[in-house]
């Protein structure tokens, strides 16, 4: 039905070209990092990209595994993210389910109680003092517990639970099922998509965060991956184990650049590989959240 005039077709054509340009701009840095992690740094500097197989090396990755701090950070991050996901999903889904019920007296008040915290908070220092007074400093709990409550997750799950037909619950109630049983046997299985979305958001959010770890953790053995990366990428602290015995400054510079690129790839790879499979779920989450 749509017929395009000449000028329209010109605009459409320009649009395609521009979009191609944007895709290149977005993709280029990612590919560059990947290549830079595999190419001899000197070659990269002098010749740019090279397809000579002798210019390729896995040295950067080897150094990372030799030192172990990134590997340890990786494992720590996995544990923190998994623990955080379990806690936050449990707490928020239960609250969301409760708030979706028509029977709950004081629903409005409780909702406002949660919503207020989206706009007001005590700020960095008072929150830090609470965590400190609870004796959570330098423990995993400081990472997992204080941020476990996420109002947005509660709203998201409440919206979803509300869409589950009441008749289903009614029928179970008539059959004599307890509220708890109804949740476990009927609501929960129907809610797998939203639980999955929230879990994914929680996991990735925790995987990518560094701030809480930076202020609450002192022990380097507890550092999550992002903090280890910060010391390498931003603070230029190449771990002693990564560089052998004394080397010239230039050599040190060469290797540290390489380690930086390799560690970027290593840190981002899991998410980038997983993400095409999860894309549709992410979009679902954004939609449910926005159309409350």
């Amino acid at each position: 039905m749509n017929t395009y005039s000449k000028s329209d077709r010109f605009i459409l054509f320009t649009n395609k070209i521009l979009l191609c340009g944007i895709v290149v701009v977005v993709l280029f840095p990612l590919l560059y990092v990947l290549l830079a992690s595999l190419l001899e740094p000197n070659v990269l500097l002098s010749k740019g990209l090279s397809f000579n197989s002798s210019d390729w090396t896995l040295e950067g990755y080897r150094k990372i595994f030799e030192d172990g701090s990134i590997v340890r950070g990786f494992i720590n991050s996995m544990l923190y993210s998994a623990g955080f996901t379990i806690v936050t999903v449990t707490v928020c889904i239960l609250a969301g389910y409760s708030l979706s019920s028509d029977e709950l007296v004081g629903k409005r008040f409780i909702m406002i109680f949660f919503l207020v915290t989206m706009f007001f908070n005590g700020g960095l220092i008072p929150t830090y003092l609470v965590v400190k007074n609870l004796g959570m400093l330098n423990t995993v709990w400081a990472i997992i517990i204080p941020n476990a409550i996420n109002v947005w997750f509660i709203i998201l799950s409440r919206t979803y639970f509300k869409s589950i037909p009441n008749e289903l619950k009614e029928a179970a109630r008539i059959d004599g099922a307890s509220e708890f049983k109804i949740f476990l046997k009927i609501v929960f299985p129907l809610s797998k998509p939203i639980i999955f979305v929230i879990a994914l958001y929680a996991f990735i959010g925790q995987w990518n965060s560094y701030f809480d770890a930076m202020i609450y953790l002192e022990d380097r053995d507890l550092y999550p991956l992002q903090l280890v990366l910060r010391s390498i990428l931003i603070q230029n602290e190449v771990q002693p184990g990564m560089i052998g015995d004394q080397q010239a400054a230039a050599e040190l510079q060469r290797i540290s650049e390489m380690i930086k690129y390799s560690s970027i790839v290593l840190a981002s790879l899991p998410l980038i590989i997983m993400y095409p499979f999860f894309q549709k779920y992410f979009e679902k989450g954004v939609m449910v959240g926005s159309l409350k």
Partner: protein
Amino acid sequence: MAKAGTETAVSAKPQSRWKVKWASVKRNHLLYWLLAPAILLTIVFKYVPMYGASIAFKDFSPIRGIMGSEWVGLKHFTSFLSSPNFMEILLNTIKLSSFELLIGFPIPIILALMLNQIRRAGVKKNIQLVLYAPHFISVVVISGMVFLFLSPTGPINAMLSFFTDKPVSFMSDPDAFRSIYIWSGVWQGAGWASIIYVAALANVDPQLHDAATVDGASLLQRIWHIDLPTLKPVMAVLFILAAGGIMAIGFEKAYLLQTSMNIPSSEIISTYVYKRGLQAGDYSFATAVGLFNALVNVILLVFVNGVVKKLNEGEGLL
């Protein structure tokens, strides 16, 4: 049956409303147990810190605790407001976030309109797949990439070497900080932010476009008169939310991209609070600065909401 109904209604009357509610609470006590962990965590980690923010008006000493510390009124506020770097930090915060809003807000909308013109669903999906990818990279890695790319030996300088003979040291240039911050943010977030607009555009009735084409409307006219008005409500809400967060501008990236050289433009309120509070241990002063920030933010939120309401025929968020 009808009689029984009236009877209960009559007998319920002398009972107070509270008793009826209480009965309902007792009947549904399980629902409250499900809420308990969330409420407990919110009280401890959100409301207690709100109370703790009172140390902004006290001289907090860790030994005496929040209760025992002495009230000093607005001392910390006045000392911040009169400190020599107050204006610089405040302006840095406002400039960084308002530029980010002005540049970062329209780009996803334009991107969505562009994507909307791609007819083949497969192609569109693949483009989106690429555009969303940077969203999943952490701030630390993004900042690390910025440092690597903009370093004197990095690829950007290698490209620039055709035009200039001396490498530009971007990261130590205060004038470059804002652009670096904002454009790296656009690179990372614009694709992802466009999702919601793309979804809104998918709901446009194709018949509207067909009718307009029959009436001789050009592509641009149709985008202007059909697509954009569709996006308006979403834009309004997102704009208020974004503007509401103006003063809450991310500590995370600003702190990571900060170097001792670009401090004159990269020191913003949140980084200042962190340094004065947690690094220097000046708890009360830093809390006062944080409160001041929150106050400015609330004023901004109310102001922007008012403006948007005026422009959007009375529809605002608040």
